[in-house]
């Protein structure tokens, strides 16, 4: 006795997962109505690309309970990889991007195995060390990477057509974000997602129901690295330029702040975190000098008062208010 597809679809739309996706799609579709000039489109694109990284990083930090202070390294490697393949070797970008991201995935796999055996502070420092080493290498090997000044990146091209311009990229980034969110939501509601959350809940109990913790930590690490690499590659082709700053410790920290602020175990929280913390500094350029200080204070306040992050805390307030 299966229900009609229409009822099923309606129920999906009413669920938090389906409803959220629809809402996000609606926002992406309708936002151009309020966006004024290209500058705002640019911010929107940056938000979307940051959000992709954050959704992946959130899987690692919020759901699986691990930490990475070096994810900017994966972001930058994705960008540089595609830049070098398409720029220096003439590969078409529809090939260089997936190739670069796959390579980053392999690197994350190789590097992740010894790293994820560590826990807590040790894991944080190891990922930090990896990220910084990547940024130093990118800065030093100037013959390949253009050194500290970075290198230029050819535009994304499909079937010979170069895709550039804020309006085109808005739709590309928006679609990519929707896809990333959809994939992440599916993952969480699957046996793999439950295994990850079990690791966070009680690693030892997870093992006793047969979850090989090392293997799952590695899986989520690689997934989050690939998300970051995709975002990095897209950013590189969009901006037409990439510098080693993209791999810096500061950038890694910014990404963690976005995830933590928006919400730990919440995909939409990650999107909100990216949106708020990318937009505010851009809009409040008058407060540019205070940016670092404000970020620091926000981080402290969030962890002390809302350790779960903004979105889950607000969701809980709403649930309580409804009762």
């Amino acid at each position: 006795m299966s229900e009609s597809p229409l009822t099923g679809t309606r129920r999906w739309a009413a669920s938090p997962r389906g409803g959220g996706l629809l809402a996000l799609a609606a926002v992406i579709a309708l936002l151009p109505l309020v966006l004024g000039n290209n500058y705002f489109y640019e911010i929107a694109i940056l938000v979307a690309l940051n959000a992709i990284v954050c959704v992946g990083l959130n899987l690692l930090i919020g759901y699986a309970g691990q930490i990475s202070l070096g994810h900017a390294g994966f972001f930058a490697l994705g960008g540089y990889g595609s830049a070098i393949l398409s720029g220096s070797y003439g590969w078409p970008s529809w090939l260089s991007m997936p190739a670069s991201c796959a390579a980053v995935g392999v690197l994350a796999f190789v590097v992740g195995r010894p790293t994820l055996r560590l826990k807590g502070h040790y894991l944080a420092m190891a990922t930090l060390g990896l990220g910084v080493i990547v940024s130093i290498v990118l800065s030093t090997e100037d013959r390949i990477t253009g050194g500290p000044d970075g290198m230029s990146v050819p535009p994304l091209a499909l079937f010979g057509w170069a895709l550039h311009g804020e309006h085109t990229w808005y739709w590309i980034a928006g679609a990519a974000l929707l896809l990333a969110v959809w994939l992440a939501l599916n993952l969480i509601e699957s046996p793999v997602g439950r295994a990850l959350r079990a690791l966070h809940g009680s690693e030892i109990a997870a093992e006793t129901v047969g979850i090989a913790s090392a293997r799952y930590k590695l899986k989520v690490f690689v997934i989050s690295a690939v998300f970051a690499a995709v975002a990095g590659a897209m950013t590189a082709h969009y901006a037409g330029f990439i510098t080693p700053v993209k791999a810096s410790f500061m950038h890694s920290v910014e990404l963690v702040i976005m995830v933590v602020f928006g919400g730990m175990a919440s995909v939409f929280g990650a999107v909100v975190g990216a949106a708020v913390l990318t937009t505010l500094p851009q809009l409040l350029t008058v407060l540019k000098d205070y940016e670092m200080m404000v970020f620091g204070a926000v981080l402290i306040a969030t962890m002390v008062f809302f350790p779960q992050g903004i979105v889950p805390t607000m969701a809980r307030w709403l649930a309580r208010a409804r009762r």
Partner: protein
Amino acid sequence: MDSQWLQYVASGLTAGAIYALVALGFSIIYNASRAINFAQGEFVMIGGMSAVTLVGAGLPLWAAVPLAVLAAVAVGLLLEKIAIEPARKADTVTLIIITIGASLLLRGLAQLLWDKRVHSLPAFSGDKPLHFMGATVLPQSLWVLGGAGLAVAALSWFFGRTLFGKAMLATSYNPLAAQLVGISTRKVLFVSFGLAAGLGALGGVLIAPIAFTSYDSGIMLGLKGFAAAMLGGLGSFSGAVLGGLLLGLAEGLGAGFVSSAYKDAIAFVIILAVLFFMPGGLLGARRSDRV
């Protein structure tokens, strides 16, 4: 060739002494709270920058230096009260993120209070280099080594001879037992932050004439100090000193003989090597997880 080698050793040990001071700060806070203080490097920066301001305001060096250290200690104590104590019971990831936030906050404040330029301090006893066995050594290097040595001696006196120092050691071995005999672990944590800040600031002041200082000079120093602490064994005081000196030597010799471009990477490679192969460090205990 000989004198070159000695040159690298001299400059390496100088940097190493600073790393040792920073590493001691990490170990002290780790012992009191099992937390890594990502803001440790900022204390170094505050020390250096405060000294620059005080000297610029007309104070003689012998007054500016202790005052700068005190300023950093005050900041460290304030930080502990505002950011660390409220989150004492939080899990590791939360604490890490809080100290990262603290480091950003301090750096942001420094950027506002001072500026983004690089500053330097006048050398304590002049710039004229000394010649020692064919190597050229700056007199400031001797100040660095001497100052760091004095600090380490004072610290071991404090932990070995004073009651509160021993109480702090007791807390690091077994916080619960320490509490049961009446030691206030909150006070221990408070004092730990003050001590760590003071040590870091001292390092910042000592090195400012050589390596200069700016609002963001704390990041790298903090990270390298952490590498040194891990190398020697997190929580071990002699390990912190040993790790600092070894790291400095590795950097000096590596930059001189292998590649100066990758000098900064040496510390991070060391962090990774220690974490992967020897998480206890050289002098730290080998822990096994009790279930």
